[in-house]
């Protein structure tokens, strides 16, 4: 990306008639960025404050829309701040701002929809307006050509990656398994013959494929457990629970880790030193054991606490990963720095660092989702999980184990489900790591 450069406004060959359109875009982006920052700030600060007050023992009734928006609020606030920088740079016609605006606004709109606020949807639409404005003929001429020039080789690389994916059977198998499980989990209420906590006391310890003793009830495909729960249905509902835990843990770990890693790598110095020592300490604990100690300290046993413990355990991985990438990129930038004058932080972050860290993060995240799934199931197996009765794979194994000589299927199937999902995630992660690895990527 050596062709990036700044144009001073008096250098740019502006068609005077388009300046108006450009000004509208600039103004709107400014409004959008401020709005994002404030909204994200409210969600983040609000959630944190309420939980602190709650911890201190004061009864509070926080508004519903704030509860549990910790991570997403933080992300939106950061996106908003980046957007502010973009809007500021936009005024000077800096070339990079246009494509940066495209990406940032798209991501922000996505995050807003994820907040599940009713107003989030309107806000998302509003955030997308500048994206539409980018494509006005007047504005498009500023940036479209360089953008295409930049994208064509990326697209070619992407197509080559897809070719490699198709050529590695194990990756394809992994993807198929993951997609199948996600779909089944989402469709559980329609696919599963029984409810997640439904117990048919007449049907205890039935082997796979047996008809129900209650007339009119569907067949128990994978048998029943000791309390008459249908193993197949419970596994499908369990997929919802386990996948949700694994995915949220990894996403939160990525958000926290990326932020801390990027900041520490970018600014370096004492901060960096401190953060690296902290991650060293975290790496001194095996994941499950630290998580175990954390849940123990938190007191109550639930999937929520398991998730929190795993988030605390997992972020250092990403902090290290991102920091390493940032250092690498910074190194390269020193060379380029001589040529491009006055590169702003936001520009460097967006243009160089984010695209280059995304690939290793995706690989790591895929494999980690499998690892988190295993550890979460392990934690709930040893007794940290939700109360008995909830459909969760680790807990199902723990309960089934007590009767495993009578109904081994109640242990076999949930464990096999864990193995399958985790294996699929590892297959995909392993495969795409090889595919993306520039050293292995021979043509």
């Amino acid at each position, binding site marked *: 990306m050596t062709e990036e450069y700044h144009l001073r406004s008096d250098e740019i060959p502006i068609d005077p008639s388009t300046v108006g359109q450009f000004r509208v875009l600039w103004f709107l982006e400014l409004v959008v960025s401020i709005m994002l920052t404030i909204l994200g700030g409210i969600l983040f600060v609000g959630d944190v404050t309420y939980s602190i007050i709650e911890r201190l023992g004061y009864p509070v009734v926080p508004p519903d829309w704030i509860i549990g928006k910790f991570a997403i609020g933080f992300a939106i606030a950061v996106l908003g701040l980046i957007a502010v920088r973009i809007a500021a740079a936009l005024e000077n016609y800096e070339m990079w701002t246009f494509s940066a605006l495209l990406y940032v606004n798209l991501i922000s709109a996505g995050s807003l929809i994820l907040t599940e606020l009713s107003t989030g949807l309107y806000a998302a639409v509003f955030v997308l307006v500048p994206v539409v404005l980018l494509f006005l003929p007047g504005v498009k001429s500023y940036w479209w050509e360089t953008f295409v020039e930049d994208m064509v080789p990326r697209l070619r690389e992407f197509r*080559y990656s897809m*070719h490699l994916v198709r050529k590695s059977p194990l990756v394809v198998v992994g993807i198929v398994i993951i997609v199948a499980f996600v779909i089944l989990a989402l469709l559980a209420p329609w696919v599963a013959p029984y409810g997640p906590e439904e117990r048919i006391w007449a049907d205890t310890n039935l082997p796979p494929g047996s008809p129900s003793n209650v007339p009119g009830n569907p067949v128990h495909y994978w048998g029943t457990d000791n309390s008459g729960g249908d193993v197949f249905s419970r596994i499908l509902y369990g997929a919802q629970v386990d996948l949700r835990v694994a995915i949220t843990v990894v996403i939160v770990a990525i958000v926290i880790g990326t932020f801390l890693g990027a900041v520490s790598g970018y600014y370096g110095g004492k901060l960096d030193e401190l953060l690296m020592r902290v991650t060293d300490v975290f790496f001194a604990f095996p994941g499950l054991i630290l998580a175990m100690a954390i849940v123990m300290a938190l007191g109550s046993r639930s999937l929520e606490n398991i998730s929190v413990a795993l988030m605390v355990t997992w972020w250092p991985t990403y902090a290290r990963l991102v920091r390493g990438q940032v250092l690498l990129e910074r190194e390269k930038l020193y060379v380029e720095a001589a040529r491009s004058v006055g590169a702003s932080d936001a520009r460097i972050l967006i243009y160089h660092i984010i695209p280059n860290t995304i690939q290793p993060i995706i690989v790591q995240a895929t494999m980690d989702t499998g690892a988190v799934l295993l550890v979460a199931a392990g934690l709930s197996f040893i007794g940290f999980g939700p109360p008995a009765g909830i459909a969760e794979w680790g807990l199902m194994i723990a309960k089934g184990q007590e009767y495993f000589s009578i109904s081994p299927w109640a242990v076999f199937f949930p464990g096999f489900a864990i193995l399958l999902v985790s294996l699929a995630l590892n297959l995909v992660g392993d495969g795409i790591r090889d595919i993306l690895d520039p050293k292995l990527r*021979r*043509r």
Partner: protein
Amino acid sequence: MSDDELVLKVEDLVTNFYTYEGVVKALDGVNLFLRKGDTMGLVGETGCGKSVTARSILRLVEPPGRIEGGRILLYVPNEESGNVEEVDLLKLSEEDMLHVRGRLVSIVFQDPATFPNPVFTIGDQIAEVVMLHQDLRKEALEIRIEELRNALDKLEGKGGLVSSTRREKIRERLAHYESQLDDPPEPDPKYKKKAALKIAEDMLRLVKMPAPDKVMMQYPHELSGGMRQRALIAMALACNPLILICDEATTALDVTVQAQVLNLLNELKKEVGTSIIIITHDMGVVAETCSWVTVMYAGTTVESCATEELFYNPRHPYTAGLLTAVPKLHENRERLPQIRGSVPNLITPPPGCRFHPRCDYATGICETEKPHLKEISPGHWVACHHPLPDKGGKR
């Protein structure tokens, strides 16, 4: 030129790489001949297939690459009969090939930083190839005898009953070993290694390595680039190979070291009797060190003749263009002339003569028919339908 002075003859060598984007036809009819005791320069633009040629000769082309045709003839003197045997390397079994690599044909690669194995000492790495290819029975026995002699000398000074019986025993063994000198037995590994290390140290001395005894015990990362390159050359020459290929062996070095290494190679050639192929971009290097030059273009041989002949009387349009592109000291031009157009894509190379799209003299035949390497005047081979006129003996 009669064939019996040759040591290597490569005929119509074809090597392809099977890649995602298509088949890279890296070599398409390469012809080389190397005479005994000669130094041949192999020159051409980057990507024209010089390294692939070198690797093909040793059959070290790695997948997705494959050698698909041609002959690589090596003329090996048979020590007993004194005759020269012709061996086609492409027909040898992989096992027989192991006896060729390192012993008959050695190679020194471009980058001294990445080629030595980082976890073994220089001494070990040179000794390894010596132990592999040389019969060290005599050397090992000699080392053993020398050690016994030294032990004896040490005991001489001391009196006493114990040492006198030990002296007796040592003398006995010494006599036994000395009687074996004419037909040494298979040595035990320890002495074989010692003998190999001794030869390795001699090799380091031969390549003018400073402090060879110390370097023997050092790891590659402890040496400078020039020293590493010397170590690699020592490794390649350790078994007195018939042919030494230097694939840009000096490009990574700075100019003074480069000159030293080149001079060294020429000296060694006289001493060891090896024939050398020097692969390089640098016409200056060719002019100084080579007696014969082969020019390659896009995977084909285009011209092959004595060095002087090439410089003063190039017959292939590509060679002529290449030579005018070389800056000369006495000329002061604003811009170096260039050959127009660019190096062809080797996946879809031009049909016929691969140079024709860039050639000022191209005609219809050049687009359809591939020119073959022909001896158009004594000692001058050119692959061109319309070679440039002979400038005669104008030197």
